[in-house]
């Protein structure tokens, strides 16, 4: 459990008995990248929405709401083995990690930045946001 006294172990034995690097470390692969998940509401009402990052997704990748499954598949594929680039420990609110990838959707490729949230030490990485990072 993340909290006031997190255990900073190099590795831990996860529930599936595989060694999982913990905590997330810059330059190391995203822990449990094979178990990433998302909530449809964040993808639909923020990432692909006009009030969120939808305008850039549409302009750069020609991706709209109806393409959300394809976008998610591309994110999952791109994040496997991708190194963590930023980490913030938010105490009782978990850990947030950033990953930068080259994303390809159909025949378009561009740099994309993705934020992941670990609610607890044993949690799977949850998609928080993803945005095209052409101009960062």
């Amino acid at each position, binding site marked *: 459990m993340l909290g006031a006294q997190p255990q900073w172990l190099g590795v831990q034995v996860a529930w599936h008995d595989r060694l999982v690097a913990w905590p997330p470390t810059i330059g190391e692969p995203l822990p449990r990248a094979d178990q990433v998940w998302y909530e449809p509401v964040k993808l639909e009402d923020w990432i692909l929405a006009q009030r*969120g990052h939808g305008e850039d997704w549409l302009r750069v990748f020609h991706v709209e709401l109806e393409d959300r499954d394809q976008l998610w598949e591309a994110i999952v594929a791109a994040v496997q083995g991708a190194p963590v680039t930023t980490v*913030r420990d938010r105490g009782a609110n978990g850990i947030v990690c*950033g990953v*930068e990838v080259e994303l390809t959707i159909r025949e378009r490729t561009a740099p994309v930045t993705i*934020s992941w949230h670990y609610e607890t030490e044993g949690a799977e990485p949850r998609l928080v946001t993803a945005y095209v990072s052409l101009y960062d």
Partner: protein
Amino acid sequence: MAIAHRIAEFDIVELTEPVDDAPAGARGGVLELRPGDTAMVEITEPPLDAAARIVFAPLAKLRVVDARS
């Protein structure tokens, strides 16, 4: 009589005080409401890195700039 808008998911908000890596005045979207009157907010202005831009702000430190509905 003015009616205060209750902060909702995907409202655009402004921080009235610094929170985590974000300064007062930073703006972004409410990604989720969490227990303890806290919101997960993605800061979009000013630009912050992928982890720093996700802050957990007490609702009392947020001002709604653009309500979703």
